[in-house]
């Protein structure tokens, strides 16, 4: 029963991936990509990785999907077709052959690795030291906090990179508005956005809070926050900030900054990113809250794109 379910799930994942890649209509392709992401989330659930499932559905399917749809509509507005543009037949054939061989080798390699829970016992042994229950949070914010610290800077850097793309005249304006142009639609979306934003705030706070013991955490919470912001912006409930807005700047750097400061405080007391005994959980929660705020704002602005001269919405 379980096996059959997993088999069907995997087939559906592959099928949706195919459609998402090769469908002629790009909007439909993105729709299938979102479905694909949700199915991936299901797969992660099946694997018992609830944290990853949340992240995959929220970020992998949700944010990425919104990004792709938004880019599509911006490109269409500029008159650019997102063609399926098949390459030359010989290239296609060659690519297909090469990719098949590669996949076969990869599959063989994968088959020769036995699945096991590897470091789970080690992690279980270390968890009492930091006082949180969710082992994934433990890895992300304690045992491999360095990865996460750098990653938070990658996210921040991505936003700066997008800002750097702004046309010379656009700096430091706000990104192109996300609000809907049709007044009636704006009305509908606006009322939903106004309702959603506070709920998203609460949700995010909750997800971060439970993240230390149960599935959840800064990334998942931050994404929910970003979703709230984005919907509110589409509905015109909130406007997009100018990029030189100092409150915005502070909220963008809050997470990385707090993380870095706590890491350096650890270094001053002994070791970089080490938490003094007994303070681990408190510090982790502090980091997670500030990270969630920054991630939420950053993700929303990542989707919104670079500062623009145009005021047109969707």
């Amino acid at each position, binding site marked *: 029963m379980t096996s059959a379910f997993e088999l069907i799930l995997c087939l559906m994942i592959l099928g949706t991936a195919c459609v998402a890649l090769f469908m002629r209509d790009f909007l439909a392709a993105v729709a299938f990509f979102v479905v694909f992401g949700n199915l991936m989330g299901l797969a992660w659930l099946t694997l018992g990785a609830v944290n990853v499932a949340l992240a995959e559905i929220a970020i992998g399917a949700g944010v990425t999907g919104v990004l792709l749809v938004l880019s599509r509509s911006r490109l269409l507005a500029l008159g650019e077709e997102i063609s399926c543009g098949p390459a030359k037949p010989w290239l296609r054939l060659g690519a297909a052959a090469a990719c098949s061989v590669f996949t076969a080798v990869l599959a063989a390699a*994968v088959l020769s*690795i036995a699945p096991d829970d590897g470091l789970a016992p*080690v992690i279980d042994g270390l968890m009492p030291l930091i006082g949180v229950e969710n082992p994934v949070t433990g890895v992300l914010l304690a045992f491999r906090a360095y990865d996460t610290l750098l990653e938070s800077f990658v996210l921040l*850097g991505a936003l700066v990179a997008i800002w*750097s793309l702004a046309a010379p005249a656009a700096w430091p304006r706000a990104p192109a508005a996300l609000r809907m142009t049709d007044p009636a639609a704006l009305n509908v979306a606006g009322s939903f956005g106004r309702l959603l934003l506070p709920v998203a705030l609460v949700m995010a706070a909750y997800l971060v809070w439970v993240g230390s013991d149960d599935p959840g955490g800064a990334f998942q919470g931050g994404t929910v926050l970003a979703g709230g912001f984005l919907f509110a912006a589409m509905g015109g409930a909130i406007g997009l900030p100018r990029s030189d807005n100092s409150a915005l700047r502070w909220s963008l750097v809050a997470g990385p900054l707090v993380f870095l400061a706590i890491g350096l405080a650890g270094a001053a007391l*002994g*070791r*970089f990113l080490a938490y003094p005994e007994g303070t681990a959980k408190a510090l982790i929660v502090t980091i997670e809250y500030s990270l969630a705020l920054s991630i939420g704002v950053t993700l929303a602005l990542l989707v919104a794109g670079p500062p623009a001269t145009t005021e047109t919405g969707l």
Partner: protein
Amino acid sequence: MSPLDLLVAAPLAFMVASLVVGRGGRWLILAASPAMLALSAWLVALPPDAAHLVGDWELPLGILLRADGVARLLVPATSLCFVAVGLYAWHEFSPKSGRETARAHTFWPLLYLMWGGSNAGYLTTDLFNLYVTIEMVSLAAVAMAAMGSLAAGLQYFLIALVGSLAYLLGVALLAAHYDTVDATLLAIHARPDLPTLLAITVMTAGLLVKTALFPLHGWLPPAHAAAPAPASALLSAVVVKLGFVIILRLWFEAFAEVVRPAAMHLLGGMGALAILYGSIQAIRQERLKSLVAYSTVAQLGYLFLAFPLISNAPNPAEPWAAVLVHAVAHMLAKAAMFLAAGLMLKAVAGERISDLAGLARAMPLSVTAFALAAISLTGLPPSGGFTAKFLLLHAAIEQGSVVYAAVLVIGGLLGAVYLFRPLSVACSGSAAPVVKAEAPLRVAAPLALAALAVALGFAGMMLIELSSLSAPPAAAGPLPAEPGR
């Protein structure tokens, strides 16, 4: 406190600061420069076995940072490049009131991101952590490349993205296979089985794309040639080196026991072709920055040509030192060359080599910087480039590798052909053209870098000694499961 942490934390702190400060962000470089140079010096002066685990979490789970020879050479060189480029860019990327541009504001946080990312990359032994650092560097690099040409930037972005994914795929296979991605642990446990070999292959392929080794170099010349001079300098000097260092870590540390000599020769052969192809393309260029960009393609070849020479050497310390010295010398010289080229091209408001006529008289210092950099890049004595190529040639002759020796010699000669061409144009004409150089003090940056590249030629023994500082043994507990499972 240890420079191992601070070398990463400080640039990131400066990134945050530059974002918060906003318009005055460029002033921060005046604080960052001395701080980072001091930290780099501290790193070099650390005791030989300096290493520690981040947060004191043991391997295989934790992340090990250490100051081995590679880091001790490349971190200071990187810092020097960033300092010089930062001081040079201080004028170019300044927000002028009324004409604000995004790049004047965003260049600075991106610079610090790249700085922190490269340092993090040189100091860590964790392959997944390296993935994150690669992305830090790539992100900043892509944005900087896009400042010159969006199309070239996008091409670079997509290629770099696939390269990172290939690397990530390898890391995933290793993580699943060995339950660790720490290079020092993999060095003990790695076995030559299918997943491991596949992982090495895809990781190397992905990194080679990012390092732009021939024939995977296609994206480099347009991106590096189009970007603003400070960005080009960073792209050519710093960014491509990180991928190379990771390959070095993989091939000579983590999988030293697994990699076959034939594979070494494959890389060496690609390196040899890169030298010849890049040089010939450089000779054919009409635009100065394209020439310098193709010279990067050629010079990167030397780094890989060294692989078989290291692995076959009876005394690998010398070719090993050679490859690191070459990386350092190329960093300094190439950054200097791009900066000098930027100054000259801006002054004559052109981009072709023929536009440089008479500049040796009008801008003697910029031409001198270019010439000194050219000496090191060509491998003429005395310079860091010479020391490196001398040691490589010595190793090649010692091992009887006629082909590699021939390529080294021919590559040096071709290098002279393409690098002396702009110089000879600059020396042409007896009357000096009237040029208007902006902020003439800026020439100090390329001049200092190029002079350092030349001065490296006198510090051969010190460089060899530093580079031979081997990695301390893994400060780690045993793997949870016995190998061979």
